[in-house]
């Protein structure tokens, strides 16, 4: 994919490295000529020094031909403005903006811009870590379902995966065992020390937690 990254701070430079390692064609834009110093020497993409809100700079970055754009400058305002323009004016298919203020993020989400609020994510994650739970949340799957991690409880050791799935509200997605992760069959026997990744309906989370505790 052809990807444009606006802003080469910590997130921008990290994204450039990550995405170019995965074979994507990266163009990065930052107004600060010193930003290039933050980029790993292995980076093979293009770097443009310029104002990310300047029409000509965006055209030079070939925004209209790009497949995706990440707006990750230090300014929330710049990120949401340029993300909206990328979508509406240049019809970039995939656009994401980094936003610090969770309240602005919420409004822009409603306006159709995918925002990533590291502050909101950090608050939720830290709150989860502090309020102890047997089920470690890994990802939210659209509000109604969650991906959680749990160690195999003694009760289930030696029993098949289907014993857990009989609830109808829990699905065993993967099992990590001895440094290896695989997709279990209904008949796969759970062993001591297994780490289970479970997809669980939000409504059934408490019941699952109780079952794993017992």
């Amino acid at each position, binding site marked *: 994919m052809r990807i444009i990254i606006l802003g080469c701070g910590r997130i921008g430079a990290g994204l450039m490295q990550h995405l170019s390692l995965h074979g994507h064609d990266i163009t990065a834009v930052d107004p600060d000529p010193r930003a290039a110093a933050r980029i790993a020497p292995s980076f093979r993409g293009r770097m443009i020094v310029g*104002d990310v*809100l*300047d*029409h000509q700079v965006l055209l030079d970055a070939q925004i209209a031909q790009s497949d995706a754009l990440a707006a990750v400058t230090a300014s929330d*305002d*710049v990120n949401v*403005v340029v993300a*909206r323009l990328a979508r509406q004016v240049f019809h970039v298919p995939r656009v994401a903006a980094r936003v610090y*203020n969770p309240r602005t993020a919420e*409004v822009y989400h409603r306006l159709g811009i995918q925002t990533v609020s590291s502050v909101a994510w950090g608050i939720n994650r830290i709150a989860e870590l502090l309020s102890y739970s047997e089920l470690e949340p890994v990802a939210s799957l659209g509000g109604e379902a969650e991906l959680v991690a749990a160690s195999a409880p003694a009760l289930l050791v030696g029993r098949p995966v289907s014993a857990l799935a009989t609830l109808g509200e829990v699905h065993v997605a993967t099992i990590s065992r001895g440094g290896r992760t695989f997709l279990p069959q209904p008949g796969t026997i759970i062993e001591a020390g297994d780490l289970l990744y479970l997809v669980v309906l939000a409504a059934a989370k408490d019941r699952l937690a109780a079952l794993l505790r017992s």
Partner: protein
Amino acid sequence: MHMLIIGGGLVGSYLAGLLQSDGHSVTVIEAREAAKGLIHRTAPGASFVLGDGTDPFVLESAGVRTADVVAAVTGADETNLVIASLARFAFSVPRTVARVNNPHHSWMFTPMMGVDEALNQADVMAHLIAQVVERQG
């Protein structure tokens, strides 16, 4: 009419004074508390709200839902654009006006971004000066 001005620097406070003397009710949102004195001197009857005008909660507490016009006149173009698009698309304000600081940014000030009227100060000034210069020449 109820006018909500975001940005209480020289432009915003002067604008507040003008609108107020034309008989409008005026509220000014400004992030720097130091600007409060300037606003009170130039527009004594205007309400002052301390806060970030791009924060939806601050806009609501300043009465954005009942404003007839929102004027985003801060010194940062991206801030003015965020305010205009929130005013139009999140709060359905009937009319929005935004200040363009950098002429290279004027391309973004469109109805699609929630801006009804963009005022490009460099462009306005340059045209006026050109007129004066050419008249004398």
